């Protein structure tokens, strides 16, 4: 069971950037939690992605996308091929939280549980992601994948927490 969240680092975008890199992540925790609140300039498509150790490990995504109208779900579909969150305006950011267990161990594939969504697009997503890479995670890139400029706009933010599970 998770104990205390310790803030390792955070960043709030002041100049649009293509991605935010958390480097030299200490190995002193057992799990990581990455919280992202962000927006981009694409009008109707896009999402966050994360990458470990500057390497595009192959990945497998399973999960669901739920789209709602009013107060009830009206549609759902498998989310395997989708980006992890949707565009939103600067006033209604998309959000995402990744739980990354056992990030500092080596020789085991890395994974993350993800929940996120977009108020503008009326989506909530929840996914599990598995990466082929087995190295300890020391660097995480957080990026935006879209059909415009692939940039986080001003006031987007990312927070990286460490958790020690005794």
């Amino acid at each position: 069971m998770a104990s205390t969240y310790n803030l390792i680092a955070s960043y709030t975008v002041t100049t649009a950037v293509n991605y935010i890199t958390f480097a030299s992540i200490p190995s002193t925790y057992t799990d990581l939690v990455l919280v992202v609140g962000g927006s981009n300039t694409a009008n109707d498509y896009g999402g966050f992605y994360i990458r470990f150790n500057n390497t595009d490990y192959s990945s497998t995504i399973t999960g669901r996308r739920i789209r709602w109208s009013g107060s009830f779900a009206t549609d759902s579909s498998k989310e395997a091929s989708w980006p992890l969150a949707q565009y939103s305006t600067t006033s209604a950011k998309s959000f995402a939280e990744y739980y990354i267990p056992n990030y500092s161990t080596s020789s085991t594939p890395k994974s993350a549980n993800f929940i996120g969504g977009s108020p503008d697009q009326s989506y909530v997503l929840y996914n599990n992601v598995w990466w082929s890479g087995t190295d300890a995670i020391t660097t995480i890139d957080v990026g935006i994948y879209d059909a415009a400029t692939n940039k986080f706009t001003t006031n987007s933010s990312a927070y990286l927490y460490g958790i020690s599970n005794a």
Partner: protein
Amino acid sequence: MTTETYNKVIVNCSTGEQEIMPLTKLEIDQVKADIVKADAERATQKAEEKRIADLKISAKAKLIAGEPLTEEEANLLVI
């Protein structure tokens, strides 16, 4: 005409230092490729959403008229 700039911010978790740096040519090429790919996926997504919406309209009209549904239309209505 403006020139698009490509950059990233590196947050050093050990020192707390934050530095905005330009992307390498390799990274820029990847960003550009991602944009093209995303645009194609977006077009596919939009087409599929419209196809599903049209199917629902068709299914509703057939139900009201008492006409048989196609299997795909029926699948939209049955979970």
